[in-house]
């Protein structure tokens, strides 16, 4: 986890900030400088919806060292209220209670800690409503 990478991704991870194309109105995430649909450079910042529902989910048991503290954890594809689909961890939920169609909202959590002396990376996850 290099400091420049954490700093560069901050707005996307903290604020779930993507872009909306001012020409074809396509909303996309994460942030890009060009519209991925029409190629226009005429894009503006767009903050994703903060609620959504679980489309698919899976349980993760084998992961990187920095994520081991959370295992086993749920990872899901969430369809947000604005139609954009994002991948994220589901927290505050028993593994046995997760289900497709479950309503969730965005919460702010630690994504990873680089040991006990390195940087802490923060960002969005999802909690059941």
């Amino acid at each position: 986890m290099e400091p420049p990478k954490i700093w560069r991704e901050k707005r996307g991870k903290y604020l779930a900030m993507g872009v909306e194309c001012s020409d074809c109105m396509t909303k996309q995430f994460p942030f890009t400088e060009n519209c991925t649909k029409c190629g226009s450079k005429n894009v503006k910042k767009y903050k994703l919806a903060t609620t959504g529902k679980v489309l698919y989910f899976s349980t993760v048991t084998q992961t990187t060292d920095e994520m081991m503290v959370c295992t086993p954890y749920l990872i899901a594809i969430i369809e947000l209220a604005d139609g954009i689909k994002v991948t994220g961890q589901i927290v505050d939920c028993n593994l046995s209670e997760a289900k497709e169609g479950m309503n969730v909202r965005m919460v702010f959590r630690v994504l990873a800690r680089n040991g006990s002396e390195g940087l802490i990376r923060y960002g969005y996850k999802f909690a059941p409503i």
Partner: protein
Amino acid sequence: MNKVGIVSFGSYIPHYRIKVEEIAKVWDEDPVELKAQLQISSKSVPGPDEDVATMAVESARNAISRWKGKEKDIGAIYVGSESHPYAVKPTATIVAAALDVEKSLTAADLEFACKAGTAGMQMCFGLVKSQMISLGLAIGADSSQGRPRDPLEYTAGAGSAAFLIGSENIIAELEGTHSVTTDMPDFWRREGAVYPSHGVRFTGQPAYFKHTIDASKGLMEELGTKPSDYQHVIFHQPNAKFPQAVARMLGFSKEQVELGLICKHMGNAYSASSILGFANVLNHTNPGDRILLTSYGSGAGSDSFSVTVTEAIDNIRPYKYDTQYYLNQSEYIEYGKYARFKGILR
């Protein structure tokens, strides 16, 4: 003189709880006696991916999303805690970025044991009243540490409360604030130490009670008020016994304390303790009600505040994610999981 007060507020308490019985079982102690002493049945436990920064952000986002103002007007952010995730690198800057209010503002992390949250509130009241800023954000948040088998292990919880302080659309107007501060060796944690130490019984009479009483009395004398002038009173809650005892000593009734006494199921959230109780009162109180809030931080000091609730409070209520929402969230965990979440098992 321009008015100053609270314009919005938000709470956050983690989802997990551990019962006194579960901790007592590990150490072969008597849970009935412990619960009678502490008057606490369980405490909140942060998840493995939570810390003071995440809890501070959640409470601040709740304060902002229930409110109709412009968060870009925030000119100061203070986060009070004794468990900031970094020793060097402020929590307040993480909060600013997560609220998208970078960068024309001042920010700092504060530490004064359990009263660093109210210290931030006082700073914001001062800056707004002197018109140096138009809006300030004061947060008290803690992910408290309690050494395994120490009496603190039964009560050291977690949570956060955030207060937006301004001069327009005030929901609780500040009437006055009064502090007392002395050098008191009742509770401490040295640089690099994982767990705090304390003076056991010494933490009571000369520390908690003396400072809480002196600050509360001092403020009421300044304002010319008496306990019966207040509908609600909130004190720091290291357990449920101390705030009820100090209320009796000051002449407040059980009913005046009840609504703000939130520690019974969530424990002591340190810098967030008294102000989470205050937030719960604000969620249920009526316009015109007068509230007295007195924090206590070891080391030691107390900040006392007197506010009057205004009609504008109904502009930000009801709100789904209020204090009660989080108090109702309670997934009880066993000591093994608690030990893993708290980093006791690595």
